[in-house]
């Protein structure tokens, strides 16, 4: 997925939800902060964009119908998916574990919308470190691969993620797992990651799921020249496709499928 496709997903979701802003919660929220030429492939090769209507935060009872609407019109195997090769996954906030105050760090990905000057379409993307916290606590192998690739590319550091976790976690009320155990597992993996990354030639990283084998020279190389978090966050608001004009929104946003919310 690239930023143009993220922009298309945001526009289509906003149009179908009749909302000016949505929250991008999953892995592809990384595209709100970095372009694909800055990212390791492991982080942007995806078939889906996880989107929460902003009203899911401001008016929680309405969100279920809206998530179902996204599934029907823009979701997996929908005509939108067939047309563009990626789909929108409407997700509930409660399935994501994020650090405290994540909503104050959202990265505004503004998408031009010629159709309406009233609605600017904006995807509120997770801050990269917050995203890595969510991935690390989720703790699936593919989540570790994602975080390890960003760390290997020096776009975030394990220390940043650890510090963010230490600042507190906004646990969903529906979280059923042992929180202390989840935190301990996350911290343990981050400790290991900070000591033993193995940087690949393509900038990705081997997921450290076994005891470290990398020598001190590799660890030293990895720990050198970390990208300061302030530098990264100073790029919080970025226009998509800055190198060229935004393509017209000719996607089948409103035209595809009946409105299941009615």
């Amino acid at each position, binding site marked *: *997925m690239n930023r143009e496709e993220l922009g298309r997903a945001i526009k289509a979701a906003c149009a179908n939800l009749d909302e000016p802003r949505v929250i991008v919660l999953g892995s592809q929220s990384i595209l709100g902060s970095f372009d694909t030429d800055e990212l390791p*492939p*492991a982080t942007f*090769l*995806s*078939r889906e964009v996880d989107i929460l209507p902003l009203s899911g935060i401001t008016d929680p009872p309405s969100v*279920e119908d809206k*998530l*179902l609407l996204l*599934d*029907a019109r823009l*979701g*997996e*195997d*929908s*005509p939108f998916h067939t047309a563009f*090769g*990626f789909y929108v*996954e409407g*997700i*509930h906030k*409660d*399935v994501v574990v994020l650090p405290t105050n994540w909503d104050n760090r959202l990265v505004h990905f503004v998408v031009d919308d010629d159709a309406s000057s009233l609605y600017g379409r904006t995807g509120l993307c997770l801050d990269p470190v917050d995203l890595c916290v969510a991935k690390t606590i*989720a*703790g*699936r*192998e*593919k989540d570790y*691969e*994602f975080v390890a690739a960003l760390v290997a590319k020096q776009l975030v550091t394990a220390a940043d993620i650890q510090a963010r976790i230490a600042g507190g976690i906004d646990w*969903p009320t*529906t*979280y*059923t*797992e042992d929180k202390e155990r989840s935190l301990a597992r996350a911290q343990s993996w981050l400790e290991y990651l900070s000591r033993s990354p193995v940087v690949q030639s393509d900038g*990705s990283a081997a*997921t450290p799921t076994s005891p470290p084998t990398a020598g001190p020279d590799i660890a030293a190389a990895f720990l050198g020249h970390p990208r300061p978090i302030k530098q990264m966050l100073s790029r919080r608001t970025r226009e998509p496709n800055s190198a060229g004009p935004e393509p017209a929104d000719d996607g089948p946003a409103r035209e595809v*499928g009946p409105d*299941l919310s009615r």
Partner: protein
Amino acid sequence: MSVVTPKTLRQQLVQSAVLDKIVTSGISIDTEPVRRSLQTIRRQVNRSPLMDRYIDRWDRIVRDNDIDGIRKIVESDDDTSREMRNLSPLSVLLSEDERRRVLTEFGTRFKAGTTR
């Protein structure tokens, strides 16, 4: 992870509907649309050994018309089966009407609060 998310449920319902259709109509899964779908998925996902393993497994299932293999993926609830359902190329075997029917069932369960 043992949490049943809406996505997990929806993909299980979709793949279950696909399996029902394959079994009741006796259609082959080793078809051009399915192979094309698998190629698209392979191109779109992270080129990691983990994803390659999943996609290669789907490749074998399609090539061997392995109905029992599909049944195991549909009925199991471990992380690997969830990821296999997430990467399934078989949804193309459902028509849009059939997909909508599955979504209607999913919506009913979703609103009943069986998932979060």
